[in-house]
């Protein structure tokens, strides 16, 4: 594993229920409200289905605006929109909030096009929520009511066309996510299409100034998450995660989710601002036999966990009497350095040479050095390295 796991909730069978036996009336799609039918759409072009996930501090909950398939007995090919609201501790649905938003099960107060054209919805500073819409709807990024995804009158907004160094590729395809920091007047936009970058602007309420870009090393970007007035996270294909210091325009951390497999469809992320941890909603394909939901909600500390201690490699002449450093690396699954970390070193007995220390420490790049003093006579020694990684450390 590359990130330190805190807990894993799932499979989240409560995310949606099968209403084959409930007999939903066709007229209003699904009633009663919380016994609605069927599952997230499998989507086409990534527009539909479970595509957004954010933490909303006002309610201290995770919000999942989603598009659902109607049960075929009700409306073949039909779909409806709504919210799932999840408790950040248990991952269970907070139905009272869902109901208060009038979000489920039928069409909510917002336009369905708001949902269908929303490429990203994220909480930003001040607990406000912002969306990025596709070019069909708008090229702007603006503040919305989290309950309807409707633009708030007089709310913050920006026409991305006014931003210097805004890639033309994003005008056509739309970026994949945006982070708005009203407090310090920063805007970060992330897009995979051709450009594969996260770009940052400041003074966006006045004369926007382009600060620079960080690379996004993946073909597909699944989600972004606002952490605070300094950092945001990006989730990518392959389960890669990246933490970006957008004020200094640099990647702060690069890692990978554990247990990535072919049944994973997306990794949606949200930063739990109250508890200071990263939540990952792993959207998986349904169980092929039972059709049951296999999505999981996972929580991680934003630090790397060691996955590999490499074999020691000598970097000096292997000669009798020589002082020979052996290098090693301690890394996470995405190759992220795990440092500083203490490594135990020992020679198999009987040993001809000697180690200068029974301990070594990983440093820059996760690399460390074990110092070995060869004996004055020809011989052979075996060096053993060990890193003890304790759960919950």
């Amino acid at each position: 594993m590359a990130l330190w796991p805190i807990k894993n909730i799932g499979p989240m069978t409560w995310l949606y229920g099968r209403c084959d036996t409930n007999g939903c009336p066709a007229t209003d799609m699904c009633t009663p409200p919380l016994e609605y039918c069927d599952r997230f759409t499998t989507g086409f072009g990534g527009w539909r289905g479970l595509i957004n996930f954010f933490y909303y501090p006002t309610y201290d909950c995770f919000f999942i605006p989603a598009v659902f398939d109607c049960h075929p007995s009700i409306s073949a090919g039909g779909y409806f929109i709504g919210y799932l609201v999840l408790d950040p501790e248990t991952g269970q649905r907070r139905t009272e909030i869902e109901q208060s938003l009038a979000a489920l099960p039928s069409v909510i107060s917002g336009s369905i096009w708001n949902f269908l054209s929303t490429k990203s919805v994220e909480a930003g500073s001040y607990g406000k929520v912002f969306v990025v819409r596709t070019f069909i709807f708008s090229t702007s990024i603006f503040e919305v009511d989290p309950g309807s995804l409707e633009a708030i009158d007089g709310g913050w907004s920006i026409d991305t066309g006014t931003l210097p160094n805004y890639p033309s590729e994003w005008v056509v395809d739309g970026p994949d996510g945006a982070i708005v920091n009203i407090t310090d007047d920063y805007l970060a936009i992330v897009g995979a299409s051709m450009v594969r970058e996260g770009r940052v602007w400041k003074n966006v309420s006045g004369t926007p100034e382009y600060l620079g870009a960080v690379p996004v090393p993946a073909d597909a970007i699944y989600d972004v998450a606002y952490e605070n007035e300094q950092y945001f996270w990006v989730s990518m294909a392959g389960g890669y995660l990246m933490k970006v210091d957008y004020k200094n325009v640099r990647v702060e951390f690069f890692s990978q989710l554990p247990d990535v497999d072919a049944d994973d469809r997306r990794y949606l992320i949200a930063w739990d601002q109250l508890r200071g941890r990263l939540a990952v909603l792993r959207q998986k394909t349904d169980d092929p036999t039972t059709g049951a939901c296999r999505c999981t909600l996972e929580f991680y500390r934003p630090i790397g966990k060691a996955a590999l201690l490499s074999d020691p490699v000598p970097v000096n002449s292997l000669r009798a009497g020589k002082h020979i450093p052996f290098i090693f690396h301690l890394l996470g699954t995405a190759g992220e350095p795990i440092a500083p970390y203490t490594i135990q070193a020992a020679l198999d007995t009987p040993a001809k040479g000697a180690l200068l220390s029974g301990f070594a420490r990983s440093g820059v790049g996760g690399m460390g050095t074990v110092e070995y003093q060869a004996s004055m006579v020809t011989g052979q020694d075996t060096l053993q390295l060990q890193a003890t990684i304790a759960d919950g450390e």
Partner: protein
Amino acid sequence: MLEQVFTSTKLLPGYYNTNAMYLRFMKTWRALYYTFLNAAGTDTSLYKLLHDASTFKMSNNVKPGTWILGLAGGGVGTYGDSSPAEYVDKVFPVDEFTGFPLRQKGVSYSGTVLNWRSLVDLERDYAMTPYNGNVLRASKLSDGSVAWDFTHNLGGSQNTQYVHWVRDGQGVILQSDTGKVLFFNYLTQEVLLQTAVDPFLLAAYDSANQVIVTINTDLLVRVYAITPLPDHFIGPTLSPASPYQYGHADLSVQLVGDQGEPCAGWWIHWNLTNNKGALEKIVSQTGEDGIATNYYFCPTDAGDIGAETVSVEVAV
């Protein structure tokens, strides 16, 4: 020939393809930056490669049109990115975490002054590129003009040579088909050391640990310490060449590798074949120039006057 100190037991992922493989040491990773093209020719994957051949896939797809080169300081750069158009003809250092180009830090270059074999010193505005088998050409990135030519006479084709960074002002040329290695000072254009490793497919200089790392067609990783293996002696020589009775003379011998490179730090064992006269020492150590010295005392007994042979040995 440098001493090989490690051969991996693991195989690298990928397959043998000389046209789409790159190997550079990335100092911030303390590891190697390795890419190769998949069998379908559609996907150039980027790996972080450790010295023991452990790999981490950093990305499925290095951005198309991106080529890799070395940067002074121990970084990796890319160039020739074709999209977005505003970034064409620039050299970009790569991000220390992701290995992807930091394109806001792009530096424009003029003309065809670099390729994937080059070492670029952005601070000094140099692109150092094999010009032909015997000449390394440094061009100014800014205007494409020739800054200097360094004639090294390694021979062969420029398409077998890669230039890597060693330390400030120093580089190394690694030649794949012969395994020749030439350390040089690119501020003064002087040769520092010429030596060799086994022929390779790709090679990089690890500037943090001062070793050369190679990959051959067997997809194993090999590590070479910068300690030339002895091949032969030059000498010993006696000065004066014919000392007189009661006299004395300086003895010296140079220990060199197969490329004539000096072998430092080796213990030389001295012997007199006929036991005429005496040696000051029976062992002495070679210095940085590969030379070990001794002192010969001529015989004092007239009966011992005659020819004497000094022999030297080294345990390799």
